């Protein structure tokens, strides 16, 4: 797997690079600002770009803006945003285009190496990886607003969908909810039918379900 990184803080950049390289992930280029990020994505065509939200020169949300621009130019490149804050608004913006291969993690999660690597691989493969804090804030929002497609879901199904949004597998969801994998599959099939996702490709439906969940959130903000 080939990865590029945009992070202006040298200490953190070196830390992330070390974690990736120790686990046989190829870091092909590094950037310190938004322009650099766009350049290395165009130049290296990586599987994944890991992007800090705050980059020079204004240190606000250049990372997100650059990632959205990179997305438009190279839709096949996975984007994993790292931030020190939980800001689901950025996730919603990234997902506004409706593509997958998007992740948003708190920087502190990099320390949990297996979980971080899992997220990196998933996003590079076109899946999603949302920080559990982002998901829990989104769920809190959703449980009270009236979103038509999600309204039909039972609380249990919402819980399953939230765990799907984090990017967990059926086995992991079953473990987290203390139920059998069979029960999880049943919930998921209910979610698919309630969200009108009857396509044949199961993985793709999974992504679409998560996108429905996130887009509902994005629209609530417009």
């Amino acid at each position, binding site marked *: 797997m080939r990865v590029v990184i945009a992070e202006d803080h040298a200490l953190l950049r070196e*830390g992330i690079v070390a974690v990736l390289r120790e686990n046989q992930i190829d870091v092909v280029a590094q950037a310190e600002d938004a322009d650099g990020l766009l350049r290395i994505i165009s130049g290296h065509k990586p599987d994944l770009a890991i992007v800090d939200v705050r980059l020079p020169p204004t240190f606000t949300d250049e990372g997100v803006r650059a990632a959205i621009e990179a997305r438009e130019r190279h839709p096949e490149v996975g984007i994993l945003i790292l931030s020190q804050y939980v800001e689901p608004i950025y996730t919603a913006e990234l997902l506004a285009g409706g593509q997958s291969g998007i992740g948003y993690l708190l920087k502190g999660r990099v320390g949990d190496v297996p979980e971080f690597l899992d997220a990196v691989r998933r996003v590079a493969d076109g899946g999603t990886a949302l920080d559990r804090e982002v998901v829990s804030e989104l769920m809190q929002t959703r449980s009270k607003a009236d979103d038509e497609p999600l309204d039909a879901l039972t609380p249990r199904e919402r819980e399953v969908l939230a765990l799907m949004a984090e990017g967990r597998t059926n086995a992991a969801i079953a473990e987290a909810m203390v139920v059998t994998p069979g029960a999880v599959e049943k919930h998921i099939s209910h979610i698919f039918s309630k969200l009108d996702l009857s396509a044949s490709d199961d993985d793709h439906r999974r992504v679409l379900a998560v996108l429905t969940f996130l887009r509902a959130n994005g629209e609530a*903000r417009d």
Partner: protein
Amino acid sequence: MKRHPKALPLHVAISGAVAVAVTVTWAVTGGGYFWPGWILLVLAYLLLQHGMLWRWRNRPADFFLQLDWVLVNGAFLFVAAFVMVPLGGDGMVIRGVIYGALFGGPIGLVAWLLQARFSSRGAKQLEERIGELTRTRRGALDVQADELRRIERDIHDGAQARLVALSMQLGRAEEDLEDQPEAAQLVRQARGQASAAIAELRALARGIAPPVLADRGLAAAVEALAAYSATPVDVEAGVDRRLPLVIESAAYFVVAESLTNVAKHADGATAQVSLRLRDDALMVEVADNGPGGADPDGGGLSGMRRRVEALDGSLILVSAAGQGTTVQAELPCE
């Protein structure tokens, strides 16, 4: 206008001393026509002017102040004339009127003109001072808002980043210690501590200066607030441009505090937030359909009021029992 605090008592003392001196001189030189009366009159007149200046130092310089000034002067000189006349001899009524007119008229007029000039100068100085204070207060608040933003950045780029780097290193150490479960457990606990510290710093920094406010402006930040609020909130954000950071922060603070209050005191209620930008002011309104009856002096509300008033704004609370609660803030922004 600068005044020495002891000026009036000093004036009284000097006048008294001069009065005693001239009277003694008159007595020693054999009495007769009481000429020191004229000196006493002048001394008393000056004291009277000084006294009025002191007494009315905080009155607005309007027509009524000038009228009072003329009336007091006229009355003084008229009475003084009657006092002087018996000392001088016969024809006291006619001479009293003449003296009264002679002194009272011109001196009163001069005093009036002087007073008008002094007081208009005072009013102008007062106006300048108010302008200066308003500017410097606003400057101080702008500096404070910038400082809070800087502190947030320092936390983000400093302590928080170091802790994140530490957590990454601990994570790598944990990986290397796969064959030593006890050591790995210790490292995992240390990483847990680092994560807790990161979370605490994150909450702290977010409270100091919400990043989304600085990044995306008031409308986006308020919508984010509404989205994460425990109560269902409807937002109508009629603000399409960036405002000074200090105004945005205050408006954000009012909305955040109000929504916290709704969640705390109006369980099950829904809220409506509206931001409207007029030519010269930002109007912030948070209304809920809860039980009402909020305490206007409660900690949250008085904090909001202080913050809004510091920007020359105003905050209104409408919260009759059973009628829901509405908080309205008006924040002037030129």
